């Protein structure tokens, strides 16, 4: 029974496909999986928009949307109808073809990322040996569509936003990859299912997730920073800084094309949170050994939503960075720590079991963080904002 519930989606697909002639089965099976991904995540996006608005409101001691439907839960439907019925404006001097292609390409690239994510036991669309590599290839190509949008709009705000976005995404691509490489170094595999399998054990009822090791914890923190920048979320939302750039690269988009950009941004957030879950939080495995009876996909999506909640929480707390602070932070702080983490994980690997490696690895990472942070703050490179004229 428990096993059936765990595998319910896999069994459902087999059952649906079994009605068809054998020659059609593989194709229809693939299409069913695609349909599931393409329906599920936009639905999750719709829910997230209303929960984000409500969460941000609560953080600011407001009520948030509560008019459409019970507790405002039908708000995304109203928003969807609104964006569908709005006029689709293409600027006269815009490059119409590229302007149209940009949001479509963004969505395609983002959806491709979901293909390799294991969302439950046996629930991975393509179990690729180089899944992680494929994922990063796809997530990096979203930069192209962002720049296409900014370039084709023929608007200074769009172009500035796109240039900022590309600069930021390329800068943070480096720490993103380097912080994930530690996992590959430990598991010796680029396959995401193997990475999840490597974290599936339990000691004293606690899981073997990589976040519970010194290098994994450091890697996860840097991964979280890099993903926040990669998905253009606050406090790294410079590409769409409303106060200076109107809306950044999607200034000239209206109606459903704008909605597609919005959707793409949130889907990128889901997929990159899903990857973080897979790499550091044990994927679909349960957090305690006595909870292993709960279906694996519930764990995956709970962890995913928890990450989304942290994204929203950070958005409600942190003010936007300045461009130079953003770049300094990426190249002078996160990147050296990522490189150090690579050394630490190698040390961890070759020191063998025992308590000594815990102490040494933790000491190196904490010491490096503390001294670098102290040095940078003393030189005023990073740290609290200082104001020359205000105050």
């Amino acid at each position: 029974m428990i096993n059936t519930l765990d595998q319910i989606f896999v069994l459902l697909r087999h059952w649906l496909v079994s009605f068809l002639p054998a020659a059609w089965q593989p194709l229809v099976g693939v299409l069913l999986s695609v349909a599931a991904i393409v329906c599920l995540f936009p639905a999750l996006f719709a829910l997230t928009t209303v929960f984000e608005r409500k969460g941000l409101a609560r953080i600011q001691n407001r009520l948030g949307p509560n008019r459409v439907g019970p507790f405002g839960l039908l708000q995304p439907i109203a928003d969807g109808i609104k964006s569908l019925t709005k006029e689709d404006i293409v600027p006269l001097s815009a490059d119409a073809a590229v302007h149209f292609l940009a949001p479509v390409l963004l969505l395609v690239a983002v959806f491709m990322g979901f293909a390799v994510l294991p969302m439950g036991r046996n629930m991975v669309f393509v179990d690729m040996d180089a899944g992680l590599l494929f994922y990063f290839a796809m997530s990096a190509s979203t930069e192209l569509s962002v720049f296409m949008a900014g370039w084709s709009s023929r608007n200074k705000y769009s172009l500035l936003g796109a240039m900022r976005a590309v600069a930021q995404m390329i800068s943070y691509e480096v720490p993103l990859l380097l912080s994930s490489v530690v996992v590959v170094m430990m598991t010796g595999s680029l396959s995401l299912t193997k990475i999840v399998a490597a974290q599936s054990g339990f000691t004293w009822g606690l899981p073997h997730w990589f976040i519970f090791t010194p290098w994994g914890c450091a890697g996860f923190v840097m991964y979280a920073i890099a993903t926040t920048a990669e998905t253009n979320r606050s406090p790294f939302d410079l590409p769409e800084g409303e106060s200076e750039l109107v809306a950044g690269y999607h200034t000239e988009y209206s109606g459903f094309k704008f909605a597609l950009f919005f959707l793409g941004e949130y889907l990128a957030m889901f997929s990159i949170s899903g990857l973080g879950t897979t790499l550091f939080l044990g994927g679909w495995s349960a957090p305690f050994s006595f909870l292993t009876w709960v279906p694996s996909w519930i764990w995956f999506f709970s962890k995913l939503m928890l990450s989304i909640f942290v994204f929203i929480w950070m958005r409600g707390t942190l003010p936007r960075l300045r461009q130079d602070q953003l770049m300094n932070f990426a190249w002078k702080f996160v990147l050296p720590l990522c490189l150090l983490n690579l050394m630490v994980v190698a040390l961890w690997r070759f020191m063998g079991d025992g308590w000594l490696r815990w102490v040494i690895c933790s000491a190196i990472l904490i010491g490096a963080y503390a001294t670098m942070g102290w040095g940078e703050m003393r030189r005023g490179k990073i740290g609290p904002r200082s104001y020359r004229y205000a105050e």
Partner: protein
Amino acid sequence: MLGEGILKGMAETAKNFFGSYFSAERLTTVEYPEQRIAPFEAARVFPFLVFDSKNPGDGADWQTGMRCVACQICEKECPPKCIFIEKSKDKKPDALGKPQFYPVKFDIDISVCMSCQICVEVCPFEAIKMDTEFELSTVDRFGGLLLDRQQLAKSNEYYHQIHPAEAAGVDARLVAEKVKADAKARSAADAAVAKAAAIAGEGA
């Protein structure tokens, strides 16, 4: 230590997030159409024209009691030029009994008005004041937002109701002016009588 401020901030927002579900005094939001807060004395939205009614309560004498004398100062001073006044050809006695012009047409386009209150400040006759009515939405964005003099005319009692302190001051000033005008008229009359008597005496 680096990152301390971020953690402190996150703790603060988390406190707000969970606190807002448990303590009602955190949520200061008023759910507008159902709940309302009493308007503030200093609230101002768009101007209206004050008229004095002989028997308070009915708006019958909005035309005769209107304080406006169509001097057109507000029209000239209005920065966005949203006031349109047409002066009358004839004169009518005002509150002091002096014959004055009156506006045949007094329109304010509230889609243009920016609520700056300059018209109120320049008016020497206390005839135009700021209203607190803000629910002015209409389906006709041209005609519906152009208010004519009948729509703009509100009684002095209404003015007292929305801005009590300010209206009391205005009334005191008007009464003082009236007393002064009466005294002047009386002394002028006395002087005329005295002059006439003197002329009569001289003649005799």
